[in-house]
């Protein structure tokens, strides 16, 4: 086959800037490189020397889509360092806030970034011209998530109400009840979203992934649990760095995460779903079975259904939390900061997000480590393409290019978090 190069100047519909290089030789992928050229942002470096109290708000600035995840991993790591445990209604409110972020982040990706791939549109704006009702439903559903974040977090983007030990301010009950009315609509819309996405056509592709996520005995994981994999890993959060290492590769400004002795693992919605299916609420399990996913999904293209199921879960869980909510006496628990090292791991919409802080006796951050989900999934995206592209070589070049972009979008990559448009170069030999 003659040499050919395909260039897509901007792979739209991903958060961040990067490029993809693919070289095909003799029907096989000879080289694949997800090239993240967004400059490093040095968050870990400028956290050093700051007061521990600043970490949740500073790290929330890493991402406009998933700031809650950064705040949550930060406060959990710091609370681990100080030996405190936030429980009861405060824990439930944090879970509610996380529901808001999953709803808004997943819905943005489902309706505006990923669905156009399945319906054959260049972007959501073109899709909206033909499917106005669908896009309006998506926007309304996303708004329900935004309203949770605004109520619990103080504002929709980069919330500012989370602190070590709890919150700065608690929500008023009448505001929660008003939110619940909207969430009842949102839950129905989420159910419709599951039915809608389950009807899409998916390419046959199901790698034997090692799924890595948090797992909690009693609940679908947001903030707590052990780190488990579908192939035997079962470790405490504090052991993250003993098992998962970061390494620099020349073609990416985001560090790649690897787990020595294990395969190139996958974090994110598919991993959570497969590792924790029985902890989903009965409504979501039922919707999942009706969607043709009775507890296992290995096709990354079907991640759009799994995200829809997680939106349904987040609506259902948010309503449960509001119904059972009894306001605590105080918005924050008493604690004393102390020198030490703390680890925190929570489930960001795109997967496992690990923070570690070393705090000195004056409360200053001496060292910080942040391992975002997209950084962990970089190797997996490349591995998917290595395996997927040979099955698609009969496609004309433009369609193959588009399929590759879609395969990257399966991961809803937040390249900015990992280190921002993807340029795709495809070369045949």
């Amino acid at each position: 086959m003659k040499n050919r190069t395909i260039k897509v100047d901007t792979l739209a519909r991903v958060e961040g800037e990067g490029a993809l290089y693919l070289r095909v030789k003799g029907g096989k992928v000879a080289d694949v490189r997800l090239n993240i050229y967004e400059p490093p942002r040095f968050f870990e470096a400028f956290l050093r020397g700051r007061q521990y109290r600043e970490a949740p708000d500073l790290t929330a600035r890493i991402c406009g889509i998933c700031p809650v995840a950064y705040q949550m991993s930060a406060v959990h790591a710091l609370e681990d360092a100080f030996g405190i445990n936030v429980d009861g209604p405060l824990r439930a409110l944090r879970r509610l806030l996380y529901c808001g972020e999953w709803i808004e982040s997943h819905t943005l990706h489902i309706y505006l970034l990923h669905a156009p791939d399945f319906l054959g549109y260049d972007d959501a704006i073109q899709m909206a011209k033909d499917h106005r009702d669908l896009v309006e439903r998506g926007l309304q559903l996303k708004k329900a998530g935004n309203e949770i974040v605004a109520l619990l977090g103080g504002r929709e983007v980069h919330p500012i109400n989370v602190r070590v030990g709890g919150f700065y301010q608690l929500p008023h009950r009448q505001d929660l009840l008003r939110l619940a009315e909207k969430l009842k609509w949102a839950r129905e819309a989420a159910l419709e979203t599951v039915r809608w996405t389950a009807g899409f056509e998916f390419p046959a592709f199901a790698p034997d992934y090692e799924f890595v996520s948090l797992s909690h005995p009693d609940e679908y994981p947001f903030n707590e649990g052990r780190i488990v994999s579908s192939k035997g890993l079962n470790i405490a959060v504090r052991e993250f760095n003993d098992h998962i290492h970061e390494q620099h590769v020349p073609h990416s400004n985001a560090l790649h995460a690897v787990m020595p002795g294990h395969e190139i693992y996958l974090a994110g919605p598919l991993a959570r779903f497969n590792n924790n299916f029985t902890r989903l609420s009965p409504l979501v399990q039922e919707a999942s079975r009706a969607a043709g996913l009775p507890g296992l999904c290995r096709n990354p293209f079907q991640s759009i259904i799994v995200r829809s199921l997680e939106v349904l879960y987040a609506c259902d869980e948010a309503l449960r939390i509001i119904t059972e909510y009894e306001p605590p006496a105080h918005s924050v628990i008493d604690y004393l900061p102390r020198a030490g090292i703390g680890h925190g791991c929570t489930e960001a919409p795109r997967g496992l997000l690990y923070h570690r802080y070393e705090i000195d006796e004056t409360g200053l951050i001496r060292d910080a480590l942040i391992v975002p989900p997209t950084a962990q999934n970089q190797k997996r995206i490349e591995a998917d393409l290595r395996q997927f592209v040979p099955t698609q070589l009969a496609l004309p070049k433009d369609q193959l290019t588009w399929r590759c972009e879609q395969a990257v979008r399966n991961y809803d990559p937040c390249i900015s978090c990992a280190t921002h448009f993807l340029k795709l170069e495809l070369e045949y030999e």
Partner: protein
Amino acid sequence: MTSGATVIIGLGNDYRRDDAVGLYIARQLGTLLPSGITIHAIEQPGLSLCDLWTEAERVIIIDAVSSGAPGGTIHLLKADDHNFLCNNFRSSSHSFGLSETVALARALNQLPKRMLIYGIEGSDFSFGTGLSDEVKPAAEQVTAQIRALLNS
């Protein structure tokens, strides 16, 4: 918000000098305009921008632009100036920018009856606060123009 109302939206980033011009003008107008006119100074526009003009009759948006014109140049645009909107306003791969939000609102038939967009050419988008000497007079001029428009 009542039907027929005017909404003014200033966009920008306070910490990237001239990028803050939309915020600066919105805040100025807040002290000068009669009540009944809703004014927003927004640092994170995104899709929720559409929610700000639901039921509004007239929307005035002010933002910094970078088109290559001299700093302080005032571009007066309408929502259908698609090419200019797409190419010259700050956009982000993190979220929908002004051009995408206007295009999506048009596709969803959610554009207000009248939309005016003031794009003010910035000359300094570096880190820091305060408008440049070229942009400050333009900001005062646009403030006066909008004030006159709303009093007419």
